[in-house]
Each structure stands twice: as C-alpha cells, then as structure tokens.
C-alpha cells in the first residue's frame, strides 16, 4: 500500500530528471540557472504560441510608476499543446504570477516553469518534480 503511494512520485521525479536536459529542445539550457526557481508578478504584454519555443513578454512594475519588460522562453507548442495548453491559455492584459529559471547574465529574462492565472489556476509548463 505504501509502495502504491510513493511509486508515482518516484516515477514522476525520474521523468522530470530525465527530461531536464532535453527540456529545451534545440539548444543547451546552460544560459539559465536551471532548477533555481524565482518568481515575478506582472501583466502579460504578448503571449507567443510559436516554435521552437513559446515566449512570454511580461510588464513588471518596478515602483514609482516605472515598469520593466521581461522576456521568458518556454517549452514549445509541441510539448505544451499536448499537455493542456493552447494559444488561448494566456492573453495580453492577464495579471499573472510566473515561476521561472533566471538568465545567468542578469538580463530580465529566463525560462518559465509555471504560470498562475488571475482565477488562481496554475499551469505547469515543465514536467513537475512531484505532483
């Protein structure tokens, strides 16, 4: 009985580990601090449902009325589209909380891991460590 409880988590975890290196299909993930989760809250400016990667442009408030634009790469429609996402999952104007892996070079960009939409729903954008 206990086995049946933890086995799915082990399987999912193994899957996540196996997928880690190939998560970014056509290039190395070396530019990101892969696995280091950070989060931001902002407003979707553009949501690009494109190959070889989806791309999220987010306007993030910086205080005193100033904002900063962030660019976040994600998995492709080939991956997301078969796991519940579509080109309608996000839209310009949505206020979202995004968990991402940051760029190593400090520019306002990274790879998005999951997105929480205004209705409180969280969309996973990578295989999860455990569910």
């Amino acid at each position, binding site marked *: 009985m206990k086995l049946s409880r933890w086995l799915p988590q082990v399987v999912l975890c193994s899957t996540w580990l196996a997928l880690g290196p190939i998560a970014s*299909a056509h290039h*190395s993930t070396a530019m990101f601090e892969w696995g280091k989760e950070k989060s931001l809250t902002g407003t979707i400016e553009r949501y690009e449902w494109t190959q070889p*990667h989806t791309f999220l442009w987010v306007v993030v408030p910086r205080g005193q009325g100033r904002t900063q634009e962030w660019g976040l790469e994600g998995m492709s429609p*080939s*991956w997301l589209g078969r796991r519940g996402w579509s080109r309608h999952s996000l839209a310009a104007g949505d206020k979202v909380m995004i968990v991402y892996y940051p760029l190593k070079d400090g520019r306002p960009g990274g790879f998005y891991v999951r997105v929480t939409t205004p209705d409180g729903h969280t969309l996973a954008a990578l295989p999860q460590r455990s569910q």
Partner: protein
Amino acid sequence: MTRTRMRAAPVAVGAMVLVVGCGSQGTPSATQSTAPPLAPIAENPYASLARLPDWSGVWEPTFSPRPRARQGGPAPPKLTAAYAAQYAKFQQKNRTTPGINFVSDVASCVPPGVPQSMQEPYPIEFLFTPGRVTILIETYSLVRRIYTDGRPAPADPDPTYQGTSVGHWEGDTLVVETSAILPETSPLNGINGHSDKFHVTERMRLVKPDLLEVTTTRVDPAVFVEPYTTSSYYRRHRDWQIMEYVCQQNNHDALDAQGKPAFSLKHNPGE
C-alpha cells in the same frame, strides 16, 4: 521470403481474372471480338500494404521503458583517439553541469542528421506506401524517405542531413540502411562530425502493441573502433497529430559571435 510471397500474389490474381474472362465469352458481341486480349491485371500495389504491421498513429520518444535501459543504459562507445577526447569532455561537462550540451548548430535551426534526428523530443509518424516507408519527424519538420522496393543503395549520392536510405522487411521488422550523411552532423550525442564512411543500420519493430523499438548501429572507422548500437523507444498516441515546426518562426537562441545560444530579448529575433 516476404518478397517471394509478394511476387506470387499478382500472378494468382491475374489467373483468376483470366478465368472469369473466359467464362463470360459465351455471347461475344462484335466489339468484344475485335478487342485486344485482356492483359493480366497486376495486383493493386497498395494491397501489399495489408501484410505490414500496423504502425499508424503518432510515436512519442520515451525514456527507459525497459529494465536493462534503466540499469545504466548502453555501454559507452569505443572511440578512436581523434573523437575520444571530445566525447570525454562532453561527458565531464554533463556530470559537472547537467543541462550543458555541446553548443551546436541546431540552436541556429540547422537540423540534425540521421540518426540524431530520430531522437529529438517531439514525435514521429510513419507512412507506408507501396515500396516505400516515409518517416515524418516533427522536430525541424524533417522527412526520411526509405525505399523498400528492392532497389540497391545509389552508388554516389550527394551527402544530405537525412542521408540516403534503403530498407527491407524481415517479418515485422523494418531494417533501414542509411549512408551519405553530411559529415558535419552528429553521429551520437556528444560527438560532432564524422567521415563520409558513416553508415547507420536501424532495426524498427513493435516490442509491445504501442511501444516501438529502434535499434541503431553506427559504423564509421574514423569515429568508432567497433560498431556502436543503442536502442530508442517510442510510445504510440493514436489521437495525436504531428504539428508544424518551423524553427525560424521565433528562435531567440541562434548562436552569437562566440558560438553560444544568444537568448535574444528582441521582439522579432530573426530581424
């Protein structure tokens, strides 16, 4: 054996047609008597496809579905000195910094060649037509044409990314022989380049109703001391469709001047 069977079938069908034709000649009309004799009708070549296994649907690459693969995967390749050093460097990097791969042209949307093109993360699809198997590869929208009509491999084809393939069926196993693969492509993850002698043999078969195994043997005396074989697995999704994949559509990761993926923060990175 399969080929013998395939040749016998049209003869039998032709004979049947002739018998039927004789039986209907009881009341010949003027036009029928001047018509040329009926030629035997060859079997519709598409009928031969009924003898092939069902590989319909879309096949997603999967990982370690078999116990042996889970226990550490295949043995490492035995490489010539020229290639051992770069492979060791890749392995070392992979251990110390997971996720670091060789920087590769594929980041700039140059597609991988055979056999790496079969091991991309997105699915593949098989089309059977008479005398030919076509593999559609979603990642980079690649096409492999495998002629199974018995023709020999051409003597000196131009090298291409997907090479030149001929194949044959051994029972329900498709055996594919590929050569003339561009020497700048990768023969194995962690190795860049190979000689013009690079030859790939793939054996493709169902090991479960919805699990396809592709066993890939790489031969190139410039790279491998002995033939190197690995196995890949694909899980069937009958309700999936292959999606369009145009790598240049929105690629933020083309290589920069230092040869590393740039991660462009331009809205239109291709411009």
